[in-house]
């Protein structure tokens, strides 16, 4: 291939990448512009820019959609979900990885198997009901921690293989108890993967739609994603408010994504490839 054709091919790839990227984000552009239109204008459902920017929709969403309450519920679930998943899964992965016996390998496989099948949601409802946690944020939180185990354990134990055992041993010689050794010696070593796991867990919890739909039954407990149902109905969907609400739901994730995307992409794929 001559130099000029090679250059041309490269230029073509560059242009293709830019155009394809723009096509990919078109639906988000659609949501944003339509969240800024008047009800009369939005009914056309078009890509046209708004005649006048109507920020009032966002105010309306906060007032009518109980968005503040949804936001609070989502935060109250997402933060403990991240905290407990990281803590519990890293400890579980650590014990299983360090023991490396036949039994511990079996337990590991049993946990990771959980990635494959789909959940049994109705029995879970029944179990939550029997321990009086159905419809509570605590109940929903438990389903996230238990359900998150397979991926988190997979992610952490892959990383732990690279932390030398000698580190543990020197702490053991000094008479350090396991919890103390784990939290003072191992935990700091895990920082990059904890970051990745934490972000994945945050996004998963924040965006989850199915869990709240099954396990929460009072509107007062609804997390943010369900707030969209304040504006969607058989009798007419108020699209301008739906899109304003969706932008509000997406905003925290976009901020997280924009600031730490390297961790997200590298981490999600690292865990998946090693599996």
């Amino acid at each position: 291939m001559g130099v000029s054709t090679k250059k041309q091919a490269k230029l073509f790839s560059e242009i293709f990448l830019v155009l394809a990227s723009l096509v990919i984000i078109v639906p988000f552009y659609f949501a944003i512009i339509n969240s800024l239109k008047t009800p009369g204008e939005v009914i056309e459902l078009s890509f046209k820019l708004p005649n006048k920017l109507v920020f009032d929709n966002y105010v309306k969403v906060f007032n009518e959609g109980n968005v503040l309450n949804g936001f609070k519920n989502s935060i109250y679930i997402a933060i403990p979900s991240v905290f407990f998943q990281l803590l519990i899964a890293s400890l579980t992965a650590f014990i299983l990885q360090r023991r490396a016996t036949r039994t511990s390998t079996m337990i590991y496989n049993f946990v990771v198997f959980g990635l494959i099948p789909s959940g049994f949601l109705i029995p879970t409802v029944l179990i939550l009901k029997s321990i009086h946690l159905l419809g509570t944020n605590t109940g929903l939180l438990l389903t996230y921690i238990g359900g998150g185990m397979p991926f988190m354990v997979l992610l952490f134990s892959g990383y732990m293989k690279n932390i030398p055992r000698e580190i543990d041993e020197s702490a053991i010689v000094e008479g350090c108890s396991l919890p103390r050794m784990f939290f003072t010696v191992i935990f700091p070593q895990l920082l990059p993967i904890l970051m990745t796991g934490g972000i994945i867990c945050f996004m998963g919890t924040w965006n989850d739609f199915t869990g709240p739909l099954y396990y929460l039954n009072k509107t007062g407990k609804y997390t943010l994603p369900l707030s969209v149902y304040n504006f969607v109905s058989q009798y007419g969907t108020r699209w301008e408010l739906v899109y304003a609400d969706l932008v509000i739901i997406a905003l925290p994730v976009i901020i997280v994504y924009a600031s730490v995307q390297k961790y997200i992409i590298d981490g999600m794929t690292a865990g998946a490839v090693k599996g």
Partner: protein
Amino acid sequence: MKKKYYSYIYLIPGIGLYVLMFLLPALVGICLAFTNWTSYNKTIDFIGLTNFNNFFKSVIKNGINSREGAALINPFIIAFIAITIQNGLALGLALLFNGKHRMSNFARSAFFLPSTLSLLISGYSFSAILSSGGPFDQLLKFLGMDWAIKGWLTDKWICILTVAFVNTWIWLGFTAAIYLAGLKAIPAEMYEAADIDGAGKWNKFKYVILPLLGPSITTNVILTLVGSMKMFDLVYIMIGQSFDYAFTMNTLVYYWKNETQGYASAISVVLFIIVVLMAIPILRKLRSREVQL
């Protein structure tokens, strides 16, 4: 000493919650599948395979026109598109990203974005764009392709293909990122050796890249297969539950969740068996083909 130190006691919170939220529901679900538990019955009785019989009877009798038939067929359609088109496009993208292009990082972030956001935003945007007489139909009209206009979210077969397409759009960047990670793991010496042997672009792809990409292919095929079979949110958001031919296994479970819980549990069991039976042989087959570096 070693075993005593890394005591199983520390597994209690993690394994305990996993058992409570995964194993126990599965066991309870399997038991419930053989009962006639409904919200109207006062007692719950063991009824053997009746639930399963009823399910497969509807499938056989009415095919895609029954909720059950649709629920069984549609996830396979979504999975087929995800495994072929999504994986093919993603591999192509990953090869492009792997080239030294100035726009690679930007494009990679843009493509990955949809998989990080709530499915609601993608679902509702596409619902509007593809609605009858909406922007997409107008575009077709503008191009003089009126004949191609379909009920994207309402027609039989078409509506599921639409969901499969949106599903591909959402996860394309994620799948590509996994392939890219696999490509980056291929040592440069491999390409050099191929160059020395005088391999062309296609041969390099066929004999060097593809075999060494084994683990990424395994991961992506399994992830897309399992994700498609479990499909719930996107169908629920985009089509809802108004058409019998647009059900998937998990939207059908949701449909019956407040009335006939025994029957719904049987559907969950069928799905569980299908997913495990499909995933495990594929996993074995793909694993055995992987080349170890």
